[in-house]
């Protein structure tokens, strides 16, 4: 569980990007941070990971406050975190297998065979065993995302952060990636935090949704409550989505 308590953050221009955020990201659930572009959701995620230092407030990882840690302690903390980046961030010079083995090479005491076996196990979990000898440039965007998920989970992290996991993917592949992240979250009982503005993801895997609006928490709930929030900016965001338009169209077609 990750608790965010009274977190505020400003940048050099003095604009408050996060304003007194309080929320809890629960273990074993897919926690979604949603909001419009520029709302502060990426800053919230990066502050939670420890990439940005917050101006005030506390971020507790199962009781351990990352805002009070020194650089070495944060570095140690990061070894419990897996992260999926927007652009996958696979290493271009390494094959898919080498990418997944990389965290093991850095931190485990396994021999080469054991590392290879563990990496292949993770690649099988994301259904990517056939691409192990290919380079990132040789595989599709969806496969890159899956390889990045395999790399993120290879060290059995307690916390998984996903930054816009669906960006650049078609709806079908997005759905597959969403479901894969949710399955992994449940299977390994990870605290997963997903930063997204994809309403399909919200409806599909939103077990705990935090809506950020102009740097403040606008609403928190789950996917079943999202249509009845009473939060105008969130309703605007939902109604502007393609998914909502499709639902509306289907509703009127049925009525006719």
């Amino acid at each position: 569980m990750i608790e965010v308590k009274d977190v505020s953050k400003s940048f050099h221009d003095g604009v408050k990007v996060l304003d007194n955020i309080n929320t809890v990201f629960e273990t074993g659930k897919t926690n979604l941070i949603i909001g419009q572009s520029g709302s502060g959701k990426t800053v919230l995620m990066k502050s939670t990971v420890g990439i940005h230092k917050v101006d005030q407030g506390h971020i507790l990882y199962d009781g351990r406050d990352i805002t009070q840690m020194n650089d070495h302690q944060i570095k140690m903390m990061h070894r419990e975190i897996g992260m999926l980046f927007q652009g996958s961030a696979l290493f271009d010079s390494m094959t898919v297998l080498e990418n997944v083995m990389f965290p093991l090479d850095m931190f485990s005491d396994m021999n080469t065979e054991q590392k290879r076996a563990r990496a292949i196990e993770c690649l099988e979990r994301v259904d990517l065993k056939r691409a192990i000898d290919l380079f990132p440039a040789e595989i599709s965007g969806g496969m890159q995302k899956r390889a990045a998920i395999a790399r993120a989970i290879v060290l059995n992290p307690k916390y998984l952060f996903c930054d816009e996991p669906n960006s650049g993917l078609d709806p079908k592949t997005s759905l597959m990636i969403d479901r894969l992240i949710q399955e992994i979250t449940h299977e390994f009982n990870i605290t997963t935090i997903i930063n997204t503005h994809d309403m399909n993801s919200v409806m599909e895997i939103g077990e705990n949704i935090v809506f950020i609006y102009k740097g403040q928490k606008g609403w928190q709930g789950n996917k079943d409550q999202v249509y009845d929030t009473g939060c105008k900016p969130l309703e605007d965001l939902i109604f502007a989505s393609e998914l909502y338009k499709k639902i509306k169209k289907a509703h009127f077609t049925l009525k006719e």
Partner: protein
Amino acid sequence: MNIIEHVGSFTKLMKLTLTIPDRWSMFGRQYLREIMKLGIDSVFIDIIISLFIGMAITIQMKLNMSNPVLPGYLTGLAVRDTLLLEFSPTILCLILAGKVGSNIASEIGTMRITEQIDAIDIMGINSANYLILPKITAFISVIPSLVIISIFSGILGGYGVAEFTDTITVTEYTQGIQYSFVPFYVTYAIIKSMVFAFIISSVASYYGYTVKGGALEVGKNSTKAVVNSSIIILGSNFMLTKLLLT
């Protein structure tokens, strides 16, 4: 950013870089890869440039020393000392600042804008140490060999001129390159080149590591890396010459 801010942020980056590697086996692997990429891959251009420069210097020296009072072997001596003192350690490093420096800056810069460096940091790895230290150590350790190869190639180029043209006789040339040899000049050349290798690899890494933006900024920073490392090399060349030779 002004120059003081650049110096400050360069110093901070070097403080992060020049630390004990997280894992020696990974450092070793990266180090060998960099030796191959920065060193071995530069041997061909090193030989070609030095051969032609050696040829040109020999012809120019002979033309400038056509006075019958001057002994014939002076041409060989001048070619040897020019290569040893200035061309191989300094001009070669300026050329390598273009090849190696832009390579390093663009590689690290691309990793920065595609979040690969963030991915390394999030894993709890010191990305500066993991990426930059092998480049600096590999280039410093391979540069003396490149300089020695360059000196020999240049001298060989001059020998080619003596052998195949009537500019200078082989006897005069070989006598000249052996005449009044100062072994310290080799040490001086190697010390200078190692300092320049540090400048090229660290300045290029700095410009790559601190890229903000997209592909355009990677290109701009690669150019800045080459220009600034060349200026620093020329400035330190003067200081090192003053320190070591006078």
